[in-house]
């Protein structure tokens, strides 16, 4: 495959040009199928593959003349308006194609027909079908099936509306993040400066930007004045970067002469040629990549699917077997079909959908109070099953604020306070050296506080100037004295600003003591500073520089550098009297001495970790969650922070550490013995996916440094290949593909870009890593509580189905009717089931490993076995017992009920004899039947008390757990009062055919309630006594 000779190194790595549309003579690289993508079956779209590769541009290598010819543009005059129009027509407007947003009605339909709802819809349709059959073949059919179908449909619709409303609410918050102000750009066309809409900017346009502007397109700079840009949304680098027309780096993302679309110009001005617009810009490519990603199902969706399969299996099995049975028993085809449908529908837990939705909503609310805004309800649980967190460094783990961490003077390292509160640690403030160091740091410093923030604490004030200088400024202001006063007393007379070739900054100030003398102060890269110095300061006295001092200096420099800190050296020179006040310093042609300076000390700075993060990382670790740091920063800094926050824990070492300890070359160490690893982005670039898998598998503590935007996505995919549920944090546009691809993408609420917030599932309102951990805790809790909730709800399914089954087999009067079933599912069971969402954890949920989505299912056959096979059966017995008591007390003994169905249901049979020879009219015995159904219903409520209490815990005894859940107690009261109301309220006999019960009939189920409680307590006791034992394996859900 051909390659342009000019491409150099950058072209090696399977890269593609972002400029397919450009009329440039460059060769286009065809799609290359990366081997590492072979595994993925779903993603066949090669363009997505291409987008994942590194960006290649060569415009930054071209000279201005070449640029001029390439884009056929005059570097002074710009394009002609006609030519610009032409290009605009050809390339289209300079805007990102908005991702295909799903229309609202599609979202609504998804809520209505997705997941669990489908089960209810099928139930409803079956009901209508059964009703249709009944109407068609029988004149006087009951309308039960019609009502049931309608209720099912209404339940689905209400729940659908509810969850749609919930999601709409959080997406509204999302929209508030967006600020769509139409942008203007200053272009030069035919020599005239003109303001045009950013959309109309075309390739080849000559564009001028100034501080505060948003870059309108990808630019190759041709001239700049002190231009700095903030590329943080693209690279994650939070510090403004200088821009100049010089080609400084092969990597287009790092070179100085390229500005990127939608980044911000912080200060200065620049002029450049547009080299890409719209979707072909670097930013546009990332956006396209994001919207092109296929997102997997959320774990809870998978769980619900699994659950539906289980339930459907049970329902269909029961339905079909009883269909056959009823045919065998001599029922007609028609009746058998009605039975079949009835049984299938009876298995549908009507209230569960609403319960699950409400539980998730409650948790989402709770999480948003803890600064996790959940966009998608299902993401609530995803966070709980997270097994790997890929976290950003800047802003998430760290405070995103350069802070002075250490000083070295008087041959001693002093520590400064880096905590967020800045309580202020003391160090040798009495030393004269410190006094001089502080003066240099304050005076040889271009940063300044922005006005009108005197009331704010110093650490929180906004500053102008770059991060290091601001850090120094704040530090001095805090621990020394007012910088402003110092600067007023020592006016600056000349300065050489910092630049990357000098690597130092120098300024000359008037001495404050009125001696008219000047002092030269300098700060910069320590090794450069040392070169200028011939003496050094120790406890306020100057000594000539010696080797010992140089050695000390080297050690200190290495030590501080090894902490990942940015180290600056400081020195000064009292200028001789010949350069006293009035001397005109010329900084271009230096007319003053700038050698033999006196070395004072070092100050090192770091973006310190947030206070809560080490704790949170520790929690993650004990919760079995792997925390991977992915950062664009330098490996050493990354490693230092990783160590600081515990991502690389104390005692573990990387292969390099090990090599250093054993004093052997790195190649001789066994990388597998090192648990920790710091992977450099450029190494990652060359890795196959197998190699990446190896790394992810074999190292528990991983830091990825110097990663590019695309690599984050590769890392996420790597983790997902390991079967992990991956959470990714990110703030920049560059993170959005990874955010989208991750099982749960977490965007930063404060520093995050709009694009990342769009792509994420969750937004961290305080940008704090620790909030994720509380989110994980909530997610795990809700998973446990959903289990309990479902166990509770499913249990009452058995006492709801068995009456119908016995009705068919034994031909007894129907013990529980459709209306009463609905009263349980949608009435009495609702609040108690929801109240279980408020249950506190049984043990420290952050001390166990994340659930394995393949094995730990939300609903497994143990849960079904418990709910259906054991507790449900006892409940059914309670119901039947009550039923038989009432019938027997009214004259129908159980034995005489067998086979009574046909006569019982005959409207014209108005002298049906009971066990005492009494004769009943149809209506009389129907009233009796409905009384029985009411009693059956009440019995279920009574046994559900016990069920609710045993569902509170899965392992612990209720006596250990306590009854602190007030909502649950309220739930018990509510269901009881509701049951009493339904039974005793006047008019209920007409409305719902529920009849008042005699008090003793309430008590029939009490023994069974006690039985359930005792049985389960014994079961749980055995499980606790024999952890991992047989009973646990068989019944612990």
């Amino acid at each position, binding site marked *: 495959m051909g390659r342009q000779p000019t491409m150099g190194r950058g072209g090696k790595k399977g890269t593609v040009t972002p400029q397919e549309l450009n009329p440039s003579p460059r060769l286009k690289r065809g799609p290359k199928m990366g081997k590492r993508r072979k595994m993925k079956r779903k993603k066949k779209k090669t363009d997505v593959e291409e987008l994942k590769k590194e960006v290649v541009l060569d415009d930054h290598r071209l000279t201005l003349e070449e640029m001029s010819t390439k884009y056929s543009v005059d570097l002074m005059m710009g394009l002609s308006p006609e030519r610009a129009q032409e290009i605009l027509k050809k390339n289209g407007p300079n805007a990102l194609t908005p991702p295909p947003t799903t229309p609202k009605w599609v979202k609504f339909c998804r809520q209505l027909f997705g997941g669990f709802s489908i089960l209810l819809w099928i139930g409803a349709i079956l009901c209508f079908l059964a009703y249709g059959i009944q109407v068609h073949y029988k004149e006087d059919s009951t309308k039960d099936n019609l009502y049931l179908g309608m209720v099912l449909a209404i339940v689905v619709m209400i729940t659908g509306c509810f969850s749609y409303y919930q999601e709409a609410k959080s997406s509204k918050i999302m929209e508030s993040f967006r600020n769509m102000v139409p942008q203007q750009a200053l272009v030069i066309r035919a020599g005239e400066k003109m303001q045009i809409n950013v959309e109309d900017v075309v390739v080849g346009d000559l564009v001028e930007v100034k501080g505060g502007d948003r870059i309108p397109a990808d630019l190759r700079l041709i001239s700049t004045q002190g231009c700095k840009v903030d590329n943080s949304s693209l690279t994650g680098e939070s510090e403004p970067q200088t821009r100049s027309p010089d080609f400084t780096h092969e990597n287009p993302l790092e070179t100085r002469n390229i500005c990127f679309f939608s980044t911000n110009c912080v200060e200065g001005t620049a002029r450049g040629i547009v080299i890409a617009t719209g979707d072909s810009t670097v930013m546009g490519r990332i956006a396209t990549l994001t919207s092109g990603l296929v997102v997997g199902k959320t774990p809870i969706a998978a769980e619900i699917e699994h659950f539906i399969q289980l339930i459907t299996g049970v329902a269909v099995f029961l339905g079909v077997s009883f269909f056959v049975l009823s045919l065998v028993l001599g029922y007609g085809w028609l009746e058998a079909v009605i039975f079949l449908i009835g049984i299938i529908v009876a298995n549908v837990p009507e209230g569960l959908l609403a319960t699950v939705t409400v539980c998730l909503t409650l948790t989402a609310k709770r999480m948003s109070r803890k600064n996790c805004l959940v966009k998608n309800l299902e993401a609530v649980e995803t966070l709980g099953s997270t097994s790997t967190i890929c976290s950003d460094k800047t802003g998430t783990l760290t405070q995103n604020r350069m802070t002075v961490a250490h000083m070295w003077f008087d041959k001693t390292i002093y520590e400064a306070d880096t905590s967020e509160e800045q309580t202020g640690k003391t160090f040798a403030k009495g030393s004269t050296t410190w006094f001089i160091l502080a003066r240099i740091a304050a005076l040889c410093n271009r940063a300044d506080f922005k006005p009108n923030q005197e009331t704010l604490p110093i650490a929180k004030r906004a500053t102008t100037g770059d991060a290091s200088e601001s850090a120094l400024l704040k530090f001095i202001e805090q621990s020394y004295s007012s910088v402003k006063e110092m600067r007023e007393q020592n006016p600056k007379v000349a300065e050489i600003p910092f630049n990357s070739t000098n690597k130092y900054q120098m300024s000359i100030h008037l001495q404050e003591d009125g001696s008219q003398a000047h002092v030269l102060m300098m700060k910069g890269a320590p090794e450069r500073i040392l070169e200028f110095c011939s003496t050094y300061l120790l406890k306020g006295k100057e000594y000539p520089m010696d080797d010992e001092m140089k050695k000390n200096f080297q050690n200190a420099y290495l030590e501080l550098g090894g902490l990942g800190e940015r180290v600056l050296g400081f020195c000064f020179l009292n200028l001789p009297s010949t350069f006293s006040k009035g001397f005109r310093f010329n900084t271009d042609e230096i007319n003053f001495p700038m050698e033999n300076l006196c070395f004072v000390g070092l100050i090192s700075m770091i973006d310190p970790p947030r206070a809560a993060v080490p704790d949170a990382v520790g929690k993650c670790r004990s919760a079995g969650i792997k925390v991977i740091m992915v950062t664009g920063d330098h490996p050493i800094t990354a490693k230092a922070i990783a160590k600081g926050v515990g991502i690389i824990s104390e005692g573990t070492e990387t292969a390099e550490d090990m090599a250093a300890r054993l004093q052997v070359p790195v190649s001789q160490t066994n990388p597998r013995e090192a648990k920790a690893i710091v992977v450099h982005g450029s190494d990652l670039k060359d890795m196959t996916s197998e190699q990446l898998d190896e790394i992810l598998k074999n190292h528990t503590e991983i830091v990825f440094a110097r990663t590019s935007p695309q690599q984050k996505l590769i890392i996420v995919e790597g983790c997902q290949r390991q079967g992990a549920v991956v959470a990714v944090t990110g703030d920049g546009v560059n993170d959005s593909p990874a955010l989208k691809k991750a099982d749960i993408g977490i965007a930063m609420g404060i520093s995050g870009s709009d694009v990342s917030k769009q792509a994420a599932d969750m937004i961290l309102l305080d940008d704090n890593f620790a909030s994720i951990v509380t989110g994980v805790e909530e997610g795990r809790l809700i998973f446990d509580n959903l289990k309990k909730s479902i166990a509770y709800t499913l249990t009452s399914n058995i006492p709801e189905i068995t009456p119908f089954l016995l009705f068919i087999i034994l031909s007894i009067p129907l013990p529980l009717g459709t209306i009463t079933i609905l009263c349980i599912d949608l009435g009495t069971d609702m609040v108690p089931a929801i109240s279980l969402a408020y249950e506190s954890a049984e043990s420290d949920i952050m001390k166990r490993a994340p659930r394995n989505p393949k094995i730990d299912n939300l609903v497994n056959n143990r849960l079904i076995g418990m709910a259906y096979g054991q507790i449900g059966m006892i409940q059914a017995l309670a119901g039947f017992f009550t039923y038989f008591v009432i019938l027997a007390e009214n*004259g129908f003994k159980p034995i005489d009920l067998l086979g009574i169905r046909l006569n019982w249901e005959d409207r014209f049979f108005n002298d049906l004899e009971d066990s005492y020879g009494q004769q009943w009219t*149809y*209506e009389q015995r129907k009233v009796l039947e409905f009384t029985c159904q009411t009693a059956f219903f009440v019995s279920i409520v009574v046994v559900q008390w016990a069920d609710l209490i045993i569902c509170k815990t899965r392992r612990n005894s209720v006596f250990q757990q306590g009854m602190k859940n007030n909502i649950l107690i309220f739930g018990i009261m509510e269901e009881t009062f509701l049951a009493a109301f339904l039974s005793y309220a006047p008019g209920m006999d007409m409305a719902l055919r529920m009849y008042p019960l005699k008090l003793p009939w309430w008590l029939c189920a009490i023994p069974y309630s006690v039985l359930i409680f005792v049985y389960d307590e014994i079961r749980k006791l055995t499980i606790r006594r024999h952890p991992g034992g047989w009973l646990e394996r068989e019944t612990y859900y």
Partner: protein
Amino acid sequence: MRRQLRSRRAPASPYGYRYRLDDQDEVNQNYLADEEEEAEEEARVMVVPDLEEEEEEEEEEEEEEEIEEEEKEEEKGQGQPTGNAWWQKWQIVNEYLWDPEKRMSLARTGLILVIYFFFYASLAAVITLCMYTLFLTISPYMPPFTERVKPPGVMIRPFAHSLNFNFNVSEPDTWQHYVISLNGFLQGYNDSLQEEMNVDCPPGQYFIQDGDEDEDKKACQFKRSFLKNCSGLEDPTFGYSTGQPCILLKMNRIVGFRPELGDPVKVSCKVQRGDENDIRSINYYPESASFDLRYYPYYGKLTHVNYTSPLVAMHFTDVVKNQAVPVQCQLKGKGIINDVINDRFVGRVIFTLNIET
């Protein structure tokens, strides 16, 4: 090209081969654990096909498991070569059936079955105990509550699952079944039988039989001949052949029910809707058109074995022909309710006569 580059790099990978093996072992172990479960499930299906107890339960579980299995297989299908998986499965099934190391087989499944068996057995014991206590508390002679069956309902004979009497006088086929039905119904009222089994008790007063609950009670005679023209003795067609149908009315039996003293329950019929004169005359038998007090109270099926419900026969001697005439017969008397809206058989009965000639 890129692939080449990678493959050249591959040997330089810093990770040893040994570890890869280890990892695979680990994976395999997990995989085996899954397999084991499945195999056991399968084994159960194979070995214990018919346990009568809890068949329902077991099958239910199997169903669930099948679903699970399918899922698992799907998962596997993606990761592992299937042939191998099947072979392993087979091995494990074998091992399960007879595990040479542990010298155990089917232990787990068996245990589940046993436990469930005992569980359900004890549940059965519990319900039996409960039912037993229930019967201890309920008297076999007298139901604890009778308010649901009160006030008494009314039913008519002949009864052919319909309350429309449509027949053509000249076509015996259309009314023959009424005659048969009535004849059958009145067999128990034959005078000979009544005289043999029951006693002739004094009319106009309750036939109260004190004594122990479990003592057999005597029943009062209600002879077929009381029904005179509707007894079928003189006119074996009960008037159907002449277009003057007899319809018998009886009040539902209720244990312990006593009509108001001195005021027997009377029957009166009239046209329910339409012209009053559609029925010009009705003869009631017994002529009092009432249920004599001596037939009350009723002591229940167990002791009051030969109790014969008293009847009132309505002889519709002059009904408009060739037209549906809705008739409502009501009970009248103290303690009788005959206007319950929901129940059209309490204290009244409504039927239509449509006699064609």
